[in-house]
């Protein structure tokens, strides 16, 4: 229980102390030596009254200010421009301004950073009568704010550098143009998810194994960012290195699997690898897929079907169960390799899907670039230009 009498007497004591302090504080000292500069001006800014604190802050004598200067004239020229274009209109329209950062030019020419509050008093008819302005020395605060600004600028600069780095790194993982292959028409396309400020996990590669012997790889590393980029680079280079000694795509992918299993990363990936060999005028494709959407072959007659032996994704199981599938290609046949960003392009709850892809291909199979560009455009339009996942695709046509 609280003793109400005790509380009452305590409150009384506090109030007594308050009134004593109030009576003891001389009103003129309260004004003159207030802990902020204080000025009163006519509505157009002519100084009519100013306290000692303001004079001490600025070095002016009262006689040099009262009736002689306007408040805005004490500011830097840039500050005067800000005053005319922002401060004065806000004061007129809203009756007050708060915490405006300005610089007063002291009588010795030094600049004093200040924070300014002002109120506009109006008479009963609504006519402006007087402006009361409080001026706070903000030297330390302004220095702190400048440091914040510098830090913000540095942060923005490093963000820009990081974006440039992402772009450069992405280009090392995604060749801007696939190489020219004698006797084959090859095109590729890539579109990162979102605004492309993060390194995605999709990649493709087209490289030569021997004369008339080429490899086309397309893959998708789970996740995004630096760690995904490390695995992407590892997978891509392992394929190239393994292709020196092994010629079967399933064997090459098995080596990638081993490398990923030994790597400390928990990440896994899917890859479809295709070897293209020329014998005489004909081409044979050998295809193995490790958990990756199977490549499509589109014949000249418009038939579209999946090709490739299908195994488990890489970096998870010791045995990925990979197999190869050989397909003989004729003139006019096309091959299409892609990542799941094509199938999973979304419009509401609807996906672009395999059916749409298979239906679209025959009409585009006039050239590799028509297929690559056409399918990329189609999926982008389908999801109204907002990519939720990376899209990578490679098209090959036997001309």
């Amino acid at each position, binding site marked *: 229980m609280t003793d109400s009498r005790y509380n009452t007497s305590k409150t009384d004591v506090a109030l007594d102390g308050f009134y004593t302090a109030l009576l003891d504080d001389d009103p003129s000292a309260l004004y003159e030596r207030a802990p902020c500069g204080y000025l009163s001006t006519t*509505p*157009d*800014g002519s100084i009519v009254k100013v306290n000692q604190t303001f004079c001490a802050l600025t070095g002016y004598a009262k006689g040099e200010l009262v009736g002689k200067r*306007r408040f*805005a004239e004490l500011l*830097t*020229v*840039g*500050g*005067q*421009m*800000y*005053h*005319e*274009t*922002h401060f*004065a*209109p*806000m004061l*007129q*329209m*809203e009756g007050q301004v708060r915490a*405006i*950062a*300005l610089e007063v030019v002291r009588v010795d020419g030094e600049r004093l950073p200040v924070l300014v509050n002002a109120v506009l008093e109006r008479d009963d008819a609504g006519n402006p009568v007087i402006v009361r302005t409080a001026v706070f020395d903000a030297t330390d605060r*302004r220095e702190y*704010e400048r440091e*914040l*600004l510098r830090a913000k600028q540095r942060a923005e600069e490093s963000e820009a550098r990081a974006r440039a780095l992402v772009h450069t790194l992405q280009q090392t993982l995604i060749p801007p143009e696939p190489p020219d292959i004698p006797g084959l028409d090859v095109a590729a396309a890539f579109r990162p998810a979102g605004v492309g400020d993060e390194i995605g996990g999709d990649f493709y590669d087209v490289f030569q194994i021997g004369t008339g012997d080429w490899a086309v790889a397309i893959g998708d590393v789970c996740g995004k960012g630096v760690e995904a980029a490390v695995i992407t680079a590892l997978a891509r280079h392992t394929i190239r290195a393994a292709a020196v000694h092994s010629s079967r795509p399933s064997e090459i992918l098995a080596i990638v699997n081993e490398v990923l299993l030994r790597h400390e990363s928990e990440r896994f990936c899917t890859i479809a690898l295709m070897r293209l060999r020329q014998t005489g005028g004909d081409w044979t494709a050998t295809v193995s897929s490790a958990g990756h959407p199977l490549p499509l072959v589109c014949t000249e007659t418009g038939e579209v079907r999946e090709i490739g032996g299908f195994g488990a994704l890489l970096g998870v199981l010791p045995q990925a169960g990979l197999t190869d599938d050989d397909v003989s290609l004729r003139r006019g046949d096309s091959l299409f390799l892609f990542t799941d960003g094509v199938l999973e392009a979304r419009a509401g709850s609807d996906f672009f899907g395999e059916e749409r892809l298979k239906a679209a291909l025959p009409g585009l199979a006039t050239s590799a670039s028509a297929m690559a560009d056409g399918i990329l455009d189609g999926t982008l339009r389908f999801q109204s230009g907002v990519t939720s996942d990376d899209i990578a695709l490679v098209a090959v046509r036997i001309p």
Partner: protein
Amino acid sequence: MVFAHGFGCDQNMWRLVAPHFEDDFKIVLFDLMGYGGSDLSSYDPERYDSLQAYADDVLRICHELRLTDVIFVGHSVSAMIGGLAAAAEPSLFAKLVFVGPSPRYIDDDDYVGGFGEEDIRELLDSLESNYLGWSSAMAPVVMGNPERPELGEELTESFCRTDPAIAHRFARVTFLSDNRADLAQIKTPTLVLQAKKDAIAPVAVGEFVAEQLPQSTYVLLDAIGHCPNLSAPEATVSAISAFVRDR
């Protein structure tokens, strides 16, 4: 009558002036791109890097609303914006009113604009230090934030506030522009309203504008400051009224 506000604030600048013309004229008020209620998402920094883009916007507004015999009232930088619009399509405009105009703010040989380049840099600093609170306080307002109704209140105090990057850019476009040579191309009858003491557009600049315009009427207002439309609304209204009603 089309009213255009100057650098810094928005169409509220005309609150004490425009209503006086409502009975006799169709009144069009708008916010320059980047200010007030304009759609910040359609602000294109490439396009808005000269006053011509703002003048094109004025013409688009006039065409969209099918206005004819336009009396364009422009404050501060909007005087030159209206002048450029009138020079491009003279047939659209009946009269122009320039309140505190300046065709060039920076001194140049014999020409006195009132400022040096250093002063403009200082203004940009002022803008920057007064927009420190923008990103955190204003961004949620712009994005719409129903869970924080108190932001609605801040929005009403957003007069004279916009995205700092836009303010910074518009300040550069405004104060580094040089439209002295365009004045002779503005054939529309023009009233030049000059405050007797104006730190942004001094009397000598107002006189220069009136001299260079082929058809001008010059009125020196007994007003102090760059915004006579706020500080001396009655004098501003009566000067504009005499000019626009004089046929």
